[in-house]
Every structure is written in C-alpha cells, then in structure tokens.
C-alpha cells in the first residue's frame, strides 16, 4: 500500500478537468484510491493507493491517467514503445555485473517544463518505486541525471570499492565506494544490498565520469536535477528484469504525460536475458490475453456482450480486439499485474461501476452450526455465569515475567522473535496469569471476586508440526479474605456434575499453588488441569494482597469425554 501527496491543481491539469470533492472521490475509486486528507489552504491531497500490484498508480500522473481514460473513453497510447530507431543512446552492460545487480533499463527525456511541483512529484515517484515497489532498493532502484552532461555510451559495470571515487550527492568531497558505504547516510541505509560482494555496481560514461553507484547514491555533478533542468536521463537497475522494465515504463509514461519527449535507450547485455541480449527500453512486455465472453458472464453473474466488454475495458486503458465469442486484451505497457483473466474481468467490473451490478442473494441452502468445541465452551461459560462468575476477555500476548517469573513457573513458551514491545512478546500457555492480571488491577473493586475466562492458550510442543498446540482452556478464580480450597472445589465439582463427567483430584505439588492445597484434575486417567489455593509467593509477585483460589482446565480435551 502506498500513500502519495499531490496538489489538487496538478491533478486537475493532468486530468484536464476541474474536480469537485465528490467527483474526485468517485474517480479515485477507479484507481482503488482513497482520499485520506484534503488541505484546502495548501491545495494538498493525501491519497492512499491500496493495490500493491499497480505501482503505475502511485503518482499524480498515474492517478490522473486512470481517471482521464475513463472520462475520454479511450486508452492513451505511447508511441515510444517498440520504436525502431538508429543511433540510439546506449548502455553497455558488462558480463560480471550479472552476479550482483544484473538488469538495467533507461530512457532519455527531452524538453521538460520543470517547476517546483513537478520536481517534487518526480522525486516522489522515484522514491515510491525504489522504496515500496523496489523493496527498499533491493529489487529495483531509480536514478535521474542531467542528460546533457553525459557522453554515451554509458557503461554499467563492477568496480573495486577502493579504486573508484566521486563526489556523491549531499557531500562536497570525493569518496571511494567503500567510503560511501561507511560514511554516506545512504550508504549506511542501503549498503547491505551490495556490501556482500567484492566489487560494487557503477554507472560511468564515455568521459569516465561516474553517474552513480547504484543502488546507493548519484554523483553530485551529473546526478542532481534542478528546476532549470530541461533534459534528463532516467535509469532503473535491479535484480528482476520484469520489475526493472516496468519501472522505466511507468516513469517514461509519467514524463510523457507531462509533455516531455521520450527517447528510448538501447541496453546491450553480454549475457542472455528473458527478452534477449539487446533490449530497447522502455520495453513493452505485454502478452495479449484472450478471454471468452462466457467467462465474463460466469464471473460477473450477468450477460455481457463482447462490445460492452470492449467499451468498458477501453475506458480502463486496455486495447481490445473483439472476436465472436471472445475478446483479446492488450493491457497497457505500464502495467504488469495481469496474471489471470480474472484480473481483466475485475477491470471490466470497475470500469462499468460496481453500483451498476444488482446484488443477488446466494440462495442455495446451507445448514449453520458451531464446532463441538465452541458448543461445549458455551455450555461451560453459561454454567460459570450462573455460578456468579464475571467473564473476562484478555489479550493472549504478554511478557515473560507475567507468564513465567511471576507464576514461579519455568516452562518453555512460544516467544516472538521480532519483539515490538516486551510487554507483548510471549504467547500465554495458561489462563491463570490473565486472571491474576485482572486481580492486580482490581483490588479496589468490591469483593468477593469471582472471575473466569474461556480462551485460547498455546502449549510449546516441538513434536507437533507447528511446534505448538493451540488449546482452549477454562480458568476460574475466586478472591476474598476467607477464600479456601473447598470453595473453588465446590464450583469445579458442580461443573463436572452438570457436565455429567466424573473426575478425581490427585494431590500435586505445583509452584503456582500452595503446597498441600493443590491437585491435578484427572478425567479418565488424564491430567486435564490444576486446582488449588494460589501460592502467596505468586500473589506477592503480582502485588495482590487478597487470597485467591483457582482452577484451570483444558476444554477441548474435556469436550471429547
């Protein structure tokens, strides 16, 4: 999910129409976009794009394009895809780069009418593509340069970290590649992408000027774009050819929409790629999709004609040829999210408008019901409520202190590796700590306290496929000055009476309970839980100053008896 900041005026200029707020929101839904904020004073819109497979929409140009296509009813076609031309600017890719960051795509952009807003948008697009689509530059990163300072062909190659130096953006001294990784803020942030290799990627022109050290940082001399810049050179490097190509396609159509002229660049590889050794980028990867009209009808739930399908898809940016009972769709080259006909069918539904489909109830009859476990759990909960207990709902995550140290228990628990907060770093394996947590917070609530929780716990069990068992437990606790073993025992006894299950207690020494006042709850020779007076040491750890008796029992096993 991406969020972009744009100016409403800029959007309207690209959309070629003014927009009221309600119109704007309606049009935004075509792009699965949601208006998060609108500041009238600064004319700024904050827009959230939910489709993570549509990076072409993560810019003001992309949003405007999707809207404009709908308004005009026609797809925008970009002439520079598949353009055959001699004397193209060229990037020569060395063979050894294949091991490190094998792919590159680029284009030259001429005649920009740059201004402050535009520059901000270019930088935003570059950032979204590198950070989100490019997974923090690992998969894909974008570099932009002043075209007129570069002497082609440009070489994309590997360099010894300490043999090449240049002045990186944001610095005023030359640094070698090693120093960039060690000292430049971008080097520190992104260095791990290349630091495992002996040599690092480098873009260098025929004048031996360094363009950049991809994916880390541009050279200050060539790689700084200003508002006066008219002609720029855009390149994308990465480790996935489709993603690299898609990124340059998106950037080139965006800049084209701004009125610039795009000139393709020839990429010459010394090794074979999915699209050959010589690729002229921007490069269309579109493979036309043939879909029968029956499939549309079946998925959408209403008859649709090939012509209607065509009309809707064209308005959504596709090129469509109509057959007798099928259509063939060429999706636009700035998209690479069409994996299955259903993707086209959804586009058709969005273009037609979801509100134009009449909801119809699924009418096939089915029988509802609860799982055995849930039915049993409801039975138990009803008993406890009837017995005067207040139900508790607790969080399942807690701290190791709560589930282990305070309970005087030394058991293995499922712990979180990437801890966000120590307070929520362990999964509970009992309900009892959750109930004691309530007691700690509730000494001011009038006594007696009778509380229970039926809830999930996770038992560490390396023998299980998932290394654990998720169980449903019942924990019940009573607290008041004269609480006793026999009182809690009475409730347990009556519970078993009503469940119609026979049980017995077997004396047990358990650190959470008082010695000589604790028992295993045994059903058919299986120990299903514990009952007892809570150990004063445990109460002390929880800072509870009122005696407590409790039991805890496993319900999913009990429900099978």
């Amino acid at each position, binding site marked *: 999910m991406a969020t972009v900041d744009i100016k409403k005026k800029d959007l309207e200029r690209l959309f070629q129409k003014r927009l009221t707020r309600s119109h704007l929101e309606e049009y935004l839904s075509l792009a699965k976009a949601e208006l998060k904020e609108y500041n009238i004073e600064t004319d700024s819109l904050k827009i959230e794009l939910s489709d993570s497979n549509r990076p072409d929409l993560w810019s003001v140009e992309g949003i405007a394009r999707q809207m404009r296509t709908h308004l005009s009813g026609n797809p925008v076609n970009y002439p520079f895809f598949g353009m055959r031309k001699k004397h193209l600017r060229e990037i020569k890719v060395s063979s050894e780069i294949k091991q490190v960051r094998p792919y590159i795509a680029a284009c030259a952009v001429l005649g920009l009418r740059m201004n402050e807003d535009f520059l901000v948008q270019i930088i935003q697009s570059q950032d979204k593509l590198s950070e989100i689509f490019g997974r923090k530059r690992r998969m894909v990163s974008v570099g932009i340069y002043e075209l007129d300072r570069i002497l082609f062909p440009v070489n994309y190659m590997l360099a010894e970290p300490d043999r090449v130096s240049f002045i990186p953006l944001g610095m005023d001294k030359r640094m070698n590649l090693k120093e960039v990784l060690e000292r430049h803020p971008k080097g520190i942030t992104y260095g791990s992408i290349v630091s495992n290799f002996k040599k690092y990627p480098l873009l260098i022109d025929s004048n031996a000027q360094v363009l950049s050290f991809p994916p880390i940082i541009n050279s200050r001399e060539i790689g700084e774009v200003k508002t006066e810049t008219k002609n720029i050179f855009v390149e994308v490097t990465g480790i996935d050819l489709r993603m690299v190509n898609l990124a340059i396609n998106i950037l080139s159509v965006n800049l084209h929409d701004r009125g610039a002229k795009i000139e393709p660049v020839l990429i010459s590889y010394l090794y074979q790629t999915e699209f050959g050794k010589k690729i002229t980028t921007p490069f269309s990867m579109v493979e036309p999709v043939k879909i029968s009209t029956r499939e549309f009808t079946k*998925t959408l739930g209403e008859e649709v004609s090939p012509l209607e399908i065509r009309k809707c898809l064209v308005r959504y940016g596709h090129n469509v040829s109509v057959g007798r009972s099928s259509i063939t769709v060429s999706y636009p080259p700035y998209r690479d999210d069409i994996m299955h006909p259903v993707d086209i069918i959804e586009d058709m539904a969005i273009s037609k408008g979801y509100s134009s489909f009449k909801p119809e109830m*699924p009418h096939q009859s*089915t029988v509802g*019901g609860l799982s055995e476990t849930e039915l049993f759990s409801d039975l138990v909960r009803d008993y406890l409520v009837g017995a005067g207990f207040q139900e508790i709902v607790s969080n399942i995550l807690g701290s190791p202190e709560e589930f282990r140290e305070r309970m005087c228990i030394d058991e293995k628990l499922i712990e979180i*590796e990437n801890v966000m907060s120590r307070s929520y770093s362990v999964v509970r394996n009992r309900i009892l700590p959750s109930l004691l947590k309530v007691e700690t917070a509730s000494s001011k609530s*009038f006594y007696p306290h009778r509380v229970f929780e039926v809830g999930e716990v996770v038992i560490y069990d*390396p023998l299980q496929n998932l*290394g654990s068992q998720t169980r449903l437990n019942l924990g019940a606790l009573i607290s008041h000055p004269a609480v006793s073993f026999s009182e809690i025992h009475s409730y347990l006894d009556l519970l078993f009476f009503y469940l119609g299950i026979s049980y017995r207690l077997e004396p047990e020494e358990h650190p959470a309970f008082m010695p000589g006042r604790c028992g295993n709850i045994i059903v058919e020779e299986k120990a299903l839980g514990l009952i007892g007076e809570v150990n004063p040491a445990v109460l002390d750890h929880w800072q509870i100053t009122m005696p407590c008796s409790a039991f805890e029992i496993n319900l999913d096993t009990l429900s099978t008896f």
Partner: protein
Amino acid sequence: MVSQRLLRWQRHPRDYSNIGRTAVSAVLNGLNLLTGETPVLLSFYTVNFLNRGTLHPEQEKILESLHPLEIKLLHSFRDKETLASKEIIDKGLIDESRLDMASNWLLKKGLIEISGEEVTSSVSLTETGGDYCKNNIPEIRILSALREGRSFTVKDINHTFHLDLLEVSSALGALKESGVIMITHGGFLELKSDKGTEEFESLQDLIGLIGEKESLNLGDLSDEHKSIIEAHHRKRGKSKGIFRISEKRNRIFSLTENGRSILSVLLKQGETGEDVSQLTPDMLKEGTWKNKTFRKYNISLSPPRISIGKKHPYREFLDFVKYKFIAMGFEEMRGPLIENEFWNMDALYMPQFHPARDIHDVYFTKEPSQCREIESPFGKRVAETHIHGGKTGSKGWGYPFDINRARRLILRSQGTTISARTLASGPKIPGKYFSIARCFRYDTVDATHAPDFYQIEGIVLGEEINFRTLLGLLKLLGEEIAMVKEFQFLPAYFPFTEPSVELHGKHAKLGWMELGGAGIFRPEVTIPLGVKVPVIAWGLGLDRMAMVALDINDIRDLFSRDLDFIRTKKIRL
C-alpha cells in the same frame, strides 16, 4: 475509622460523598464476613410512627431517623437519670460494640450527653506472664535448680531451662545484683546466699495471683504490687513483659432535655426498639408472627451494590455475531494461533516478497521457528502456482518459491488463514463458513491497535457464486450483522481475491464507514487447494461497531483488566 463513617453512611446511603465508594464496599464486605449479617438488614430501614404526638418538626425528623438500637438505648433511661456504659453492657442491654455506635449517634443528635467519664485500668498476664505462671520466672527456676544441687554453666542455661538469651542475661543480672549467686571459674553457677530472694518470690506470687483471676483491677492492688507491675508490664516497643495493663473507659451518659421528650413520646407509643425487622422461620412455624409488629422500611433508599455472574460485554457482542452467522447458515471454523507462512500467506497467493510478510507486519516465533512439513500435495501445488501459475490458468508470480520460507512459523496474522485450511480439507459445496479468529500484527499498541484482536471472516462456496451474489452476500451481512441499511460497494485490492470489493455502510452513529472487505478467491488460491467452484472470501471489521456498542473510545478497553469497568459495562446492540 472507615467503619465508623460507613455505619453512618449505611443509615444515610446517599450521603457518602466524603468516603470512597470502593472503601465502602471493602468495609461492607469486611463487615459481612465479620458479623455474618447482610448490610441490608443492618442498615436500610428507619422507624415510622403512626402517632407522632406533639413534637416540633425538628424533633419529628429526629424521631423518624431513630434506629432500633438508639430507641433501645433511650429506653434504658426510663427510670434513670444517668447510665454508665459499663452498666448497660453488664446488664446485657446492648453489647459493647453496638453501644459505641448507638451512643455516638445519639450524642450527635443531641439526645444524650456525657456527664462523666472514668477510666479503669486492669492488669492481666501476657503470654510470657502465662508461661511464668505455669513454669515460674527464670530467676526462680535457676534458684530451685541450684538448691536441688544441680550444677550447670552459664552456657547451659538457655537450653536447660528453655529460655531465650535475653531472659537468661536479665535473670542472671538480677540474681547477681541481689547477691544470691556468683559465677565461678569455668562459668559454673553457685549459690552465694539464701537471702535476697524475696524480690523474686513476691513477683512470682503476684503472677500467680493475677493468673488465677485472669484480670485484676489495678486500683484494688496494694502499692507494692503496683510497683512490681509497673516494673514488669509490657511497654510499647518491648516485646517481652509479664503484665499487660489495659484501660477501659466507662462513660456516664445522661439524657438531654430533647432526649427526655423524645423518650416520652416513645414510651407513649410503646416503641421499645424491640419490634421485629425480620420474619423468621420460627415465627412462621409457631405462629408468633401474628403478635409482632414489623418495622416499616424506607424503601426509597438506594440498595447496596452486589455483583452477579455476567458474560463479558465484548464476548456478548461476539456471541451476537456468532449466532447471527449460524442463523444465516454458516458453519464455524477454528484454527491454530501459531501458523506457518504457508497457510497464512502462500496458500493465499501472497508472494513471498509481499510487503505484508515483512518483519514489520507479522510476528515470527523464536523457537521453534519452522514447522516440520507442509501438507502434501498442497505444498507442491502452491509452489508451482507461485512460480508459473501451475494448473490455474495464471502466469503466476514468476519468482523462485522458497519452501523453507513457507515453513516459517508465525503468529496468525489474518483470519483468512483458517479459510485456506478449510478449503484444503474438503469443504461442503455449497457451503458457508465463518470464524471469529484471534490475530496478531506487528503494531505499536495504542487506542486503535490492540496487541491481539478478533477478525471475523469466512467463505461461501458454490456453483452460483459470482460477482452479483458476492454483492448480495455482503448486503446481507451488512444488514444482519452491522444493522446498516444504506450501502456502497467500492473497488478494492486484496492479494487473494479478484474481483475484490469493499463494503461501506451508513452506520446509525458512525456515519459512512468501511464495514469489511470481500472478493472471489483467485483461482490461484482455490485450485491448488482442490476446490473447483468459485468461492467468496469475506471479512468484517466490527471492532468499531463493538466499541460503539460498548460506548468506549479506546480499543484496548475491549480487553480491559479493570474488574469495576467490566462489571459495570453495559452493551447496547
């Protein structure tokens, strides 16, 4: 202190502004446990009179406010001008603890006054004194042993005579000082003189005397005895002592003029404070209820708080949702909290590089970190689908699928995981399923993010499933579960559904809001799991609705630890 104020409060339950409500309940409970009486009986009645006589309004008010105990106490003055508290207790008119209470009330109302107060001190034995009474004081014990001719050293004394070190050293000191014994070389004790032992003997006699009577009035003792007691009674801060002196106050009460006139009205009316509040089984058995007057209660007073057994309000909300789903023909699904990435993401066609699988979105387990195996044949089928689309008619994601990544154990991050498992386990067709699943996300806990939370989601399978029945189902869920009448369907994106839709509804209190998301599962999800019919996947976001129903603003309150909060929280669906 609180008890005293509480008793006042019990008579005027609305006037407890100066006393913490919780303190009141704690004391109430304490009283309950101590006296075995319920506070209701103790407190919430006042006496009403049919015939009020000739009192002025102030007096009438007082008369109405009288507690039976007060009436009883006033009655004790029938033929007396003054009464000593000792006398009242000794005659068994009112017991000690209640007398304090009743007299304080009457004092406050100005019906009686204190015309004198005497303090009597009595002396009794402490625990140590009791021991010395039985076994003699240490000095006597040592002397008798020496007289019997036994020989022992200083070191032997404490275990020979079961004395602690302090007792030994003070006894030896006293014996040496009075010149009765001496200590020879080797630490042996020896009798030095037969004289000088009177001090010890008279102390022993006095202990015997007090021990016999249990308690003696200090005033009745001779000066000699008094000075012995003075030397040996327990003083503050000292743990050992032989005698305990306790002081008892005997207050002399007399009726005020006001009290006198109230009493005369009471006498005229025959109010003795002995009338009956509680109908007992004996009265019914014996028929004596016929001759009794039952006090009338002031029923306009607030009752004391009690607690009852109650479902948790959030669970009540979830139960409501649960039973709605059953009513609509949905079957419940359950699944494990610790999952592998395979069922949580891979099976849902979320590519392994998907941002939602990031370390900042999902909680990974520390140990074990990997499951043992991915169930066959699903592992292979799903892998193929990710790589090149497999048999689904899709191009696939086109990246090298890592089965070890699929085995990574995590805390379930979405309820749809359970739907994926259901699809793989041979679901009914047509079929409808739901789950209310606890899920976990890597998020900072705040007013809108709980550390773990419930997701309500499910699937609907069948030949008839298409985009229109998807909308129809969502409309039904919106109407039945969210109780919303106006809807909007918006295009949406979920990695596992296509087409996808967001359901927005106009909630009575919240206005337009997102109620949930849904879509038709991609064939890349259903086909590898062995399902050949289209499947709707839906999920509802009901936490905001639950918060409205519970009238709270902080999502963490759904899982509150505060028992007062939980006990008093009501739910309005």
